[in-house]
């Protein structure tokens, strides 16, 4: 249990630093800055206190906001995916999720990618809708969500294969 706290704290700090120091400065094609910190929500243990998880996600988003001068955009979108994560999981993994023995690592690759992709799409949609905040620019919102979401997904998949989690 102690170990899990430790791992999550380190992961939290490292993801914030990697996000703000590397990926926020990336500007691939001039505007693509992948948001890899979403991996924290992907990796977070499934059978944990839900309120703590939502609160923690809020703090994660807020820390990114402090670095990127973006008001509370990251906080709002992160807390949204933290709240709907169980719904997404039930959609992707079906009833398996109810069993005690369920592990993220034991699901198929396709399921893991779908889960991650859904988290990213919802997060980016909320984020860019709030950032641009005008219906006149719906196309811009969709374009950004598509392009940056794809980049985020690819990078997150690279990260997950690099640091594969072996956790009960």
């Amino acid at each position: 249990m102690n170990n899990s706290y430790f791992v999550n704290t380190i992961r939290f700090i490292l993801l914030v630093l990697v996000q703000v120091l590397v990926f926020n400065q990336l500007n691939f094609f001039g505007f693509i800055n992948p948001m890899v910190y979403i991996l924290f929500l992907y990796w977070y243990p499934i059978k944990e206190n839900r309120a703590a998880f939502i609160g923690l996600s809020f703090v994660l988003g807020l820390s990114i906001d402090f670095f990127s001068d973006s008001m509370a955009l990251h906080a709002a979108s992160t807390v949204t995916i933290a709240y709907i994560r169980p719904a997404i999981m039930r959609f992707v993994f079906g009833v398996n999720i109810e069993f005690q023995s369920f592990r993220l690592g034991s699901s198929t690759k396709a399921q893991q990618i779908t889960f991650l992709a859904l988290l990213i799409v919802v997060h980016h949609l909320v984020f860019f809708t709030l950032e641009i905040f005008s219906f006149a620019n719906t196309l811009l919102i969709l374009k950004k969500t598509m392009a940056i979401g794809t980049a985020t997904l690819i990078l997150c998949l690279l990260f997950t294969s690099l640091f594969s989690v072996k956790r009960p």
Partner: protein
Amino acid sequence: MQQIINFVIRYKHFLLYIFLLMISLGFTIQSHSYHQSSFFNSSNWLTGNIYNASNSVTTYFGLTEENKKLVEENKRLRNILFNIKQEDTIRLDSVALAYTITSGQIINNNFAKARNYLTLNKGEKDSIKPDMGVITTKGILGIVENTSRNFATVQSVLNEKSNINAKIKNTDHFGSLVWNAKRYDVVQLVDIPRLVKLSVGDTIVTGGMSSIFPENVLVGSIQKFDLDTSNSFYTIDVKLFNDMTNVKNVYIVQNTDREEILELEAITEDE
């Protein structure tokens, strides 16, 4: 009562989510830009120092480029200096200077968002205050929004909220410089009346109305222009001279008369 408690317990996660979402939306959609940014800015102690540390590592990679820019500027300034008319013997008293200049470096740069901010390594201890203009060797960059002891955040011209007084060079037709969040090298100049003769390539400079920037600081050149929906004003696409993706050394400009101007304007408006 029991019913209410049951309701709260059953939906506690939803309520927590709504609560946190409301907090973040509240922060995001506040109308007062000062309160909005005084909390979420990268000029505070922790974020500023982390950016400073990362900047001291990455700054070496651009030194050649920066040197070239500074040499280029020195060349331009010497050109002006050597060709200045000699009969002008009036010396400016250092107290009577209209503008004071501080140099600084950018330690964090954003240009891909709808609201972009930059972080400078100069702050209150270098007498940097909010609402000072920030320029580079090539043109304007933004306006200081927030300061802490050692750092300052700058609202970039690439910011939806940005609104800077600008005019067409050598005329007195002025308008506002805004940004539509589309391209990082193009900003929009609005409110130029349709009577004004324009041509592609004309230079846009800052106007003298703002008391933030000195008059005639370079901004960019006209890329294309259209009439707006009411057909009475031009909306002009201005290509910035500054490469906003590649800025390092900046100058922070303070108008020493600004407070007096603002005071006078406030009195006039009250009457």
